[in-house]
Structures are given as C-alpha cells and as structure tokens.
C-alpha cells in the first residue's frame, strides 16, 4: 500500500442555519477557506464538525458535497464513527465509494464493551475498506470507550491497512507506548496529534496533526506544524503556548459538560468574520456575557493579529 501521509489536517466545522439545517453555502466557504489557508488535507466531520449531531443521510450528503467542492485539491479523510458497528461499517463503505482518501474511526460511541469487542468493532470497519485506516483515541473528557495500547496493537495485527493512530487523548504514556510497541509491529505506523498540541506528539515521532484551531488561526497552526516537522521542539514552545492560550479561552467559554469548545469555536469564528451559526442542540451557544468575555480574551491575544479575517 503506498504510504498516505496526511500532514497538517484541518478539521472544518459544520455551519448551521438558524433553523438548525446544514448551511451548505457557508460550508462551501468554510472548505475554500481551509484549502486557501494551508490545509494539507481535510478530515470531516470530526467532533468540531459535530458528527454526532448529524443524521446518517446528512453525514453522507455532507461528505459528497465536500468531495465535489474540494475537487481533489487536497485529500479528504472521512470520519466514520458510530455506536453500532454495522452503521459505522456502512458509512465507511459509502465514504470509500464517494472518493475519500482515508477513513478515521473512533472506538464505539456510548458503549463500554470489553477490549476484545472494541478491537472487533475497529477491525470490521478497517477491513471493510481498502483505504488507509486511522483509529482515533478520543479526549479524556469524552464519554465512551478509549483506546488502550493493547487495543491498538491488536488492531495493527488484524488490519493490514491500519495507517496510524490519531491521538486526541493527549496522553504521554499512550503515545509513547503506541509508538514504541506499535512500530515494532508496523514500522511505518503514524502518530497523528488529534488536536493542536503538536509538540509532545512530534517529539515522540508523530508526523501529522488534526487541527481544529486552524479554523481561527491557520498561520499559527502552520508555523507550529512546520517547526515540529523540523524537530525544533524547544523553538516551538512559544507558538505552542499561544495555541494553548487560544485553546484554553475557547474551551473554557460556555457551559458544555464535555469542555468540547464547540460553542466557543463558533463564537470565535463569527468574530473573525466567518459566521457559521451556533452548534446544534443539545450543545448551547454562548450567552451574551460569555461571548463578550471570550471576545475580550481574543482581542488581548496579540499573536492573532496576523490571522485572516473574513472568508
């Protein structure tokens, strides 16, 4: 299998109209913005794209729309995750037929099955397609199953097209163990930072990143990514700190129990002249006071001065 290396992957939000329908006109602009602002690839719809809040037909239509809009300019990694294995498998097959470059899947949503069943779930998705397959370790705050090193090693053994692990757990021990033990089984196994914390992952040999904050600060994310690719981890600290500051402000805005930052991200996008509406229920948009506080925080971040405004 030729090696697919995704590089700096932008993870677009899904814009909604006031009636909560997907706003496809704006989605086209979102995709164009990412392509123009340094995305090596796109992954969609990731948690920032509110995949869980979309119906199955919407997920399919969204991907088809994105493929048409992107027209092969950058690879599109399709996210196929669900609670039920067969649903996730069907969605991965659809994505392959629609022309996705790779598939990324979570362990099953909601359930807490035994490790062997998590492996079975991921193996069935991965072996159903011929595309490079990535497995995603969700953030520590998330609900449901997470990946253990043992699960990853078992999936590597059974899925020949398993290309790598996208790690959003940000867990040093997991990353270390996956790299050192996983690479014994598959020497070209990729570690991809599942978020904008690229320094730790890069120091451990990670080569890519899924970057939600590229929606706000694509230049900063690119500069951080390039420093890490050049092994300049100490030099990257200042940029990582700026990204951390932005991340903290967005995530701590609002009252989401998951601290997923969805409401903050969309509010910030609006303030940068790229209005994408508010998240779908049950996620609450920011109240006026919270929004004001976030915008004030953003205004104080001088490192955002060089970032693009508008579309």
């Amino acid at each position: 299998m030729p090696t697919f290396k995704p590089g700096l992957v932008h993870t677009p939000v899904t814009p909604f109209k006031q009636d909560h329908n997907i706003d496809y006109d704006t989605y086209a602009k979102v995709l164009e913005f990412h392509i123009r602002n340094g995305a090596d690839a796109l992954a969609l719809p990731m948690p920032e794209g509110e995949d869980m809040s979309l119906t199955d037909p919407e997920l399919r239509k969204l991907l088809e729309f994105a493929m048409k809009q992107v027209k092969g300019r950058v690879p599109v990694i399709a996210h196929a995750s669900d609670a039920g294995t067969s649903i996730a498998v069907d969605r991965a097959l659809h994505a392959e037929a629609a022309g996705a470059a790779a598939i990324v899947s979570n362990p099953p949503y909601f359930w807490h099955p035994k490790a062997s069943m998590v492996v079975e779930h991921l193996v069935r998705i991965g072996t159903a397609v011929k595309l490079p397959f990535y497995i995603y370790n969700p953030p520590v705050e998330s609900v449901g199953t997470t990946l253990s090193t043992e699960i990853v090693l078992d999936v590597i053994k059974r899925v020949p097209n398993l290309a790598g692990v996208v790690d959003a757990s940000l867990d040093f021990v997991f990353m270390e163990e996956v790299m050192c033990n996983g690479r014994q089984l598959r020497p070209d196994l990729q570690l991809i930072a599942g978020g904008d914390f690229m320094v730790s992952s890069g120091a451990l040999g990670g080569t890519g990143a899924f970057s939600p904050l590229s929606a706000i600060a694509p230049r900063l994310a690119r500069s951080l990514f390039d420093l890490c690719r050049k092994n300049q981890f100490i030099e990257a600290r200042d940029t990582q700190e700026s990204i951390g500051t932005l991340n903290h402000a967005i995530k701590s805005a609002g009252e989401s129990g998951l601290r997923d930052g969805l409401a903050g991200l969309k509010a910030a996008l609006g303030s940068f002249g790229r209005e994408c509406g508010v998240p779908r229920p049950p996620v609450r948009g920011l109240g006026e006071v919270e929004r004001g506080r976030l915008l004030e925080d953003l205004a104080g971040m001088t490192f955002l001065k060089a970032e693009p405004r508008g579309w």
Partner: protein
Amino acid sequence: MQAPVTPLKDDFSFDGEGFAKMVDFHVRNGAPAIAWPHHKAESLNLTIAERKLGAEIAVKTVAKRVPVSIFVGTLSEEDSLDIARHAQKIGADMLLTISPYCRRPSQEEIYDSIVRIGTHTELPVLTYNSPWRNGEGVEFTSELTKRLIDRLPNYIGMKDASFHSEKFLEISRVALKMRPGFAIIQGVEHLLAAYPLGACGSFSSSGAIAPNLCNKFYKSLVDRDWDTARDCQFKISRLWRLFKEQYPSSLKGAMIMMGRPVGPTRSPLPTATKERVEFLRTQLEELNILQTEPHGW
C-alpha cells in the same frame, strides 16, 4: 531525580542498612537529587515511624551531596504535618506534598491542605499532581496552581503525573510566568513529550535498574538530540510496561538480577514470584540492560 525503593528484610521489616546502600548507589550513579518515599517506595505501607527513620537515613547518607526531598503524603493530614516538621528538623531540602488520599477532594479542599502544609514549614514545597480518570485523583489545575503560587512563597514546583499535553501546558504557561524557576518534574520518565513544553526533569522509575540509560536520556534532551532521546524514551517505556503492574513488585524483582536485592514487597502488593523474576531477566537481557548497566552496589 532518583526515588529509591524501600529495601525490606525477608521478614518484611524495614532494612535500614540496605536503604543506606540504595541511596548511596543512586548518588554515586549520577542522581541530581534523592526523593523518598514515593509510591515506588511503598510509602503508604510504611509506618510513620519508619518514614521518619528512612528520612533520617536518607539525609545522613546523602550528606549534602545532592538535595533530598521528603514525600509527606499520607491518609491523615495530621501525619503529613508531623512528617513535614520532622523533615525540616533533620535537614531535608524540600517537601513533596499532596492532599490526603482517598477523599476525592474539591479544588478548595486541595488548596486548604497545601496551604496548611506550606505555611507549616519553611522548606520549599513541591505538590504532586495526580489526576485520574473519573475524578478520583488529586488534580492541580492551572487555576489552583496559580492561587497556590500567589499564596505560598515557598511553593517551588510540581511533580506532574497528568501526562497530558493540554493540562501540562496550561500549568507550565501559567506557573512559569508567575515564578520563572518553577520546577515541573515528571512522575516516572515520561519526559520526552513534556521536556519541550517546559518540564525540567523527572522522578525516575527505572534508575534503580538502568541509571546509565536514564542519564543518557536526560543528556540527549539537554543536547536536543531527539533521535537518541526517542530511542531512550522508548526503551524506558518498555521497562515501565514491565514494572507498572503491581508497582513496585516487578521492579524489586528485577533488582535481584542487577545484583541489588532489596527484598520482598509488603502486602497487599505481591512479591514477584521466581517465574516473574526469570521472565524479567529475559526481558532485561533483550533490552540490553543486563549487559550495559551497573551490577551490585
């Protein structure tokens, strides 16, 4: 920093002589500081009297060659205060502290505990950040760290066992601005991911087995030799996978192979069986540890 294990005699009693040898071994093999008794040293399975005795032996054996940190975490805050007073009296250099165990403390409760201990001693204080999933651990968020730095002039650093890029970065970016020398020290050698983010060292798990590897690892970080650092980190990570189960039973078992027997592990933790020790021998050989690291005391 090396965190020695606690040698026990065959009858499970504290082996003071063995402990002095253990401490001296670490200092002679390049430890920049000695920290005792961490979980690796079966801290909660030692009596308070044993912990004081061990602290005295550590301070006396080290004899100012490197700093000595005494861990004061216990089930009862009164015991922690008692150990802290004792550590100051016998000439220890700093304290490592956490709020009392098994309480699911709120941020306010952790704040109160640390302020109580930090104002009870003149020694520099480190806190132990140990968040677990499901909120069972004791977590020092960046906000709490900020409040404690504001409140305590002797709060100089943190042992970090969050092992999490975002949490680590939050603490380091807040703390280093307020107190530039604030020392963030990784628990166990999960150091490669944290060093570029501002970690300055680690409390070692493998140093009793492979001090040369630990020293080489740290040097590679300082030299920014990332390829060597990765090799060392992955080797240490494989060692940690051997040791972490029923920690420190396997570690103590492996020390037999290195000619540094430190006796059994106190219940309820198991003592490594003969089969386990033999398995560890094959693994240490495969990792080229048996062949390249110091044997005996």
